[in-house]
Structure formats: structure tokens, C-alpha cells
């Protein structure tokens, strides 16, 4: 089955006050759940509003099912739309709120609309509150009503601006499940702005990272989290280990040499290799959960800790291709801090650089680790991910650490 292209955004630009969205291009297919992340003020809301036709586009085109809708007024687009604060109409009951779109068309009493309402009320579990007024509803109820309102006329595309961010985790989890259901079972394409990366991961099939009105990176959520394309993206996406260093050349392969501890990691996977000139200052970016912590080296190559001052001292394991398994590289480190985090333990290790490792509780039990002990860290060579170091170019915004 060929994937149906629903929305095709080409070079969309617009200005609002001092801010501007700059030449954004991306596509949304019918089976996509597109998650948009980005720092405060990066233009996420503005982008959604532009897609819905609520702000005028200055340059670029938006195609919907091959039709140019760049200048179409919002009421002709019929995309579902929901803001973070649900914005229910205080003068209408919950039922009237949901039926609003149908009422505008004079179809509020049509049998198919009634059926749809009953169906939505069931799925969203809002049957009992249909006759109440919005003011006294809980946050979760409000959001569900807001979703029902947006979904009533079966929009093929749902635009959601941080719809779950004001809710407690339990309510949020329930609504996430619901959104997933709407996406999968009702066949609605969704574009969803969120600040919650777990949510992005959980729901998204695709993801955009916006920053300062520009599309910074796009791909699957997994790609973005595992392989941010820049220091900014790595920091924004909370990659815990961002180790400065540069690209080295050894044994006819590219390696990453750390700056502080002069340790080599690699050989680097071929991804993006062409961009990487030997000597280019860069960062090794790897998530804390991608690093395995054990009491002793488990790979074939033993722990050869030579953190001497020599300029090219190779300390990372250079394993021959292991039996069937992906190549790993490992290195020793000293535990400096242990923080219990509920579902995992955050272990801070020092090995010239500072490494954060997340050890799941269930595994932690068997480690019996103490501060000051030496452990063996390991990660898969294919997880080694290098991003360019851009000097002062990319600002770190609000990052305080």
C-alpha cells in the first residue's frame, strides 16, 4: 500500500512581530503522527496556526492532498485544532461545545452527527458530563472535550498544541493512549507539539525539532534522540553525555579522540563520515542509557586502562568483530556519584571526562556499587555519535548547566 501524502509544506515562511518562521519544508502522510519539539518561542504554535490557516503565510506553499491551500481560509481546511488550554466555550454546555462545528453547518441534529457524538463520548469517556458547563471541569475532562470538539467532523488531520502539558501524569497517560487510538484506529493524521520527550517517543512516528523559527532536524523520534545532528539538538534533546574532542585518523578509520582524557573511541560508523574532516573539533554525543555499566569488562578485549598523557594513547577497546554481535568499545571509570531516580539509578563516573550512566533498578540490585569504585563502561560502536562543534555559533539559550 502506497502511503498517502496528506500535507506537503514547501518553504513556508512568515513573520510575526520580531519573530519569523524561515522556509520550513516537510511532509505529513496519512499514517503519520508528527511530533514537533523545540524550545519556548521557537515558533511551534505559530507553525500550527499557519497550517490551520490562522496566520497568513508570506512565502512558500502548503499543499493538502495535492491542492494548494496556502491562502485558503481556515474554515475551508477543516483540520482539527486544539490548544494547550483547551479553550472551551464558557457559554455552551459540553455537548454544545462538541457539536459546535456541526451546529455552524446546521447539522447538529443530523443522525450521523448524533451517532458520532455518542461514539466520541464513549471513546473519550465524557458521556456523564455532556450536559455540564465547562467551567467546573477538571483539566483532563476539559482536554477530552476539546479533543471531541476537534474530532466531531472527522478531520483527516489533527493539529494539537501541547494538549497534555497541563495535566498530571496519570491523566496524561490516559490521553496519550487515547490519541494513539485515534491515530491508529480512526486513521487520523496528527501533528502534535509537545515539551515532553517521553510523550514524543511514545506517540510520534516522525519528529521535527524547531529552533528560532528554523527546522533544525527531522526524522523519527528514535533517530533524533539517538543521533541529534548538532550540539544544539543534542543538548536540547537532553543527551546526557556530550564529550568534547575531535576526529582522529588511525588504522585507516575515523576515531573520536576526547579532549580532556585523550582517549579514542571508534572506529566511527560511516554515518555522515563525509562531513568529518580529520581534526575537526566535535562532540561525542551518547545517551546515558546507551552505556552499559558492569563491574568488570565483559567484552573479549580486557580493560586496558592507559589514561596516560600521550597524545595518541588508544584506550578504547579495539575489538575484532565479536561473534555475531555488534562491535563494542569499553573503558574503565570511577564512580563519583550515585543518585536513585525512581526507575533507574544515575551513576556519575569519571574517566578524564565525566560520564553519566543510567542503570535500571532491576540491574542495579546485582551491582552492589559504592562511590569510588572502579567500573567498566561499554557502548556499542554503532551508538557512537559525533556532532560538530560550532564554536559560538549555536547559542545555548537558557541552558544553565
Amino acid at each position: 500500500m502506497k502511503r498517502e501524502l496528506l500535507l506537503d509544506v514547501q518553504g513556508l515562511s512568515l513573520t510575526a512581530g520580531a519573530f519569523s518562521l524561515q522556509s520550513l519544508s516537510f511532509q505529513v502522510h496519512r499514517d503519520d503522527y508528527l511530533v514537533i519539539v523545540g524550545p519556548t518561542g521557537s515558533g511551534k504554535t505559530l507553525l500550527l496556526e499557519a497550517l490551520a490557516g490562522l496566520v497568513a503565510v508570506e512565502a512558500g506553499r502548503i499543499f493538502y492532498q495535492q491542492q494548494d491551500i496556502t491562502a485558503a481560509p481556515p474554515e475551508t481546511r477543516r483540520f482539527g485544532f486544539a490548544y494547550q488550554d483547551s479553550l472551551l466555550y464558557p457559554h455552551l454546555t459540553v455537548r454544545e461545545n462538541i457539536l459546535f462545528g456541526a451546529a455552524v453547518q446546521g447539522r447538529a441534529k443530523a443522525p450521523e452527527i448524533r451517532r458520532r457524538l455518542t461514539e466520541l463520548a464513549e471513546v473519550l469517556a465524557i458521556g456523564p458530563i455532556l450536559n455540564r458547563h465547562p467551567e467546573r471541569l477538571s483539566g483532563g475532562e476539559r482536554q477530552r472535550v476539546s479533543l471531541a470538539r476537534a474530532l466531531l467532523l472527522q478531520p483527516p488531520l489533527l493539529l494539537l498544541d501541547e494538549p497534555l502539558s497541563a495535566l498530571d501524569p496519570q491523566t496524561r497517560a490516559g490521553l496519550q493512549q487515547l490519541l494513539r487510538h485515534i491515530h491508529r484506529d480512526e486513521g487520523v493524521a496528527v501533528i502534535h507539539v509537545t515539551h515532553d520527550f517521553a510523550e514524543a517517543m511514545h506517540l510520534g512516528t516522525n519528529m521535527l525539532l524547531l529552533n528560532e523559527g528554523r527546522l533544525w532536524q527531522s526524522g523519527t523520534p528514535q533517530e533524533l534522540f539517538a543521533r541529534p545532528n548538532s550540539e544544539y539538538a543534542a543538548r536540547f534533546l537532553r543527551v546526557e553525555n556530550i564529550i568534547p574532542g575531535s576526529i582522529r585518523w588511525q588504522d585507516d578509520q575515523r576515531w573520536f579522540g576526547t579532549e580532556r582524557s585523550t582517549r579514542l573511541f571508534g572506529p566511527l560508523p560511516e554515518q555522515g563520515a563525509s562531513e568529518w574532516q580529520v581534526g575537526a573539533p566535535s562532540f561525542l554525543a551518547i545517551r546515558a542509557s546507551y552505556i552499559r555499566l558492569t563491574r568488570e569488562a565483559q567484552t573479549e578485549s580486557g580493560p586496558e586502562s592507559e589514561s596516560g598523557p600521550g597524545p595518541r594513547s588508544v584506550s578504547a577497546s579495539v575489538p575484532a568483530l565479536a561473534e555475531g554481535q555488534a562491535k563494542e568499545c569499553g573503558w574503565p571509570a570511577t564512580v563519583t556519584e550515585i543518585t536513585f531516580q525512581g526507575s533507574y539509578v544515575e551513576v556519575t563516573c569519571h574517566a578524564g571526562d565525566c560520564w553519566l550512566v543510567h542503570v535500571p533498578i532491576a540491574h542495579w540490585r546485582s551491582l552492589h556499587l559504592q562511590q569510588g569504585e572502579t567500573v567498566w563502561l561499554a557502548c556499542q560502536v554503532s551508538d557512537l555519535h559525533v556532532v560538530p562543534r560550532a564554536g559560538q555559533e549555536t547559542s545555548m539559550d537558557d541552558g544553565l548547566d
Partner: protein
Amino acid sequence: MRRQGEPFSTIVTLITAALCTLLLAVFAGLLGYGETESIRDLFQEPEFRFALRLSLQTSVAATLLATVVAIPCGYFLARNHFPGKVVVDSLLELPIVLPPLVSGVALLIFFGPLLGPFLQEAGIAIVFTPLGVIVAQWFVALPLAIRSFRQAFAAVDPRMEKVARTLGCTPFQSFWRVVLPIARPGILGGMTMTWARTLGEFGATAMLAGVTRMKTETLPMAIYLSMTNGDLSFALAIATVLLLVALLVLTAFKVFMRTEVQL
């Protein structure tokens, strides 16, 4: 948050109470001077009854017309920013500055020599007619309505409209079905003030519509005529009726329409 005996909140309450007392005393003085027993007789007089009916009819009509104009104006001013807005703003406030008598003269000039011939052709008579009463009241009360409505519209989150648009509303529908109902309390509050102003209007009305018995004579004019003829207590009796009618209508309207006010 408010603690008993907190000096600031006590003072604020006291000032409000004092003002209410002052108003009550002032109005009471009025009642005291009026011959209250004559109020019953008043209702026997056809001239008074006519004036009362005309006052109510014209003030309601003028309020509705002012509302119809002030709603788009207020909405425009609440949502648009443009160079020179401050001048437009002051211009729309000017009718408040003019003594009603002068407003009346201006309207008389406008609907007489200036527009009169055209109106006559169209078969519309404004000068010295009940229609003129409505026009004069409308003109004088309009700025109050515009300012009130503007404040009410400005308080409606524009995103409420945006959501309506995505639900299939044209700009007009989103205004009609969303903005207007949400701004309702403010609109109704503004309308009570507008109505109060039209009900008490005298100077402009007398000038444009004349004070013709059983034709264009409203309650304030009846009061004026009685006063001019030395019949102060009769004038005050009418004023008392005017006050009571206004108090009744205002309160009933607010209760009935459930404006922001709590009982």
C-alpha cells in the same frame, strides 16, 4: 485572603458604603421634596403616561441602535491597531464632551439644513419627531457603549475565535457564535449604562426633537417643563418615578440577564 479588620479592605469597604449612603441621601432628599402622594395621581394623567411610555420606548430603541453600531466599532477598536488610532479614539469620545444642548444643535444642523432635503425625499422625518428623540439619545449615549463594548471584546481571547475558525466558522460566524456570547456580560453591563444615559437625556433631545406634548415629550422633558412652570414638587415627583423605574429596570435586567453581577 481578606481578613476581618484588615485596615485597607475595611477602608475600601467603608468608602464604598459611604458613597452608597451619600447617593441614597441625595436621592432621599429628592423624594422628600417631591410630593410623594402626588405620584399616584401622576399615573392618572395621560400626558405623564405618554411621556413615560415614550421614554421607555425611545430609550430602548436608542440603546438597541447604539448597541448595533457600538458592537462592530468596539470590536474593531479592540482587535485592530493602526496609526492614528489615538485620534479616532478621541473622536469617538467627543460627543461626551459636548453639552447635550450643543449636541442637539449639531444634530439639528446635520439633519436639518445639511441632510434634511435628502431625508425628506426618502420620507424620513427626524427633526421634531419621535424618531429625532431616538437619534438624539443614540448620539449622546453611543460613546459610552463603544468604550464598554471595546473593553469587553478586548477581554475575549482571540484564540477562541481561531478555534472557531478551524471548526468551520467564517469570521462573522466566529464573532457571532463565540466572541459575542463570551463578551455578553460586558456587553449587557455596557447596555445598562447606555440605557441609563438615554433615559435621562434631555438637552439634545429637546433641541432635535422638540418638546411637543403627547408627541416628543419624554420624562426628563416633563420634569423640565414642570420645573420651568414653577411646579417643583411635581417635577420632583416625576423625577422620583424616573429614578424608581430606572432602579427597577436596571436591577431586573441584571438579574434576568445574569450579568457579571451576583445577586
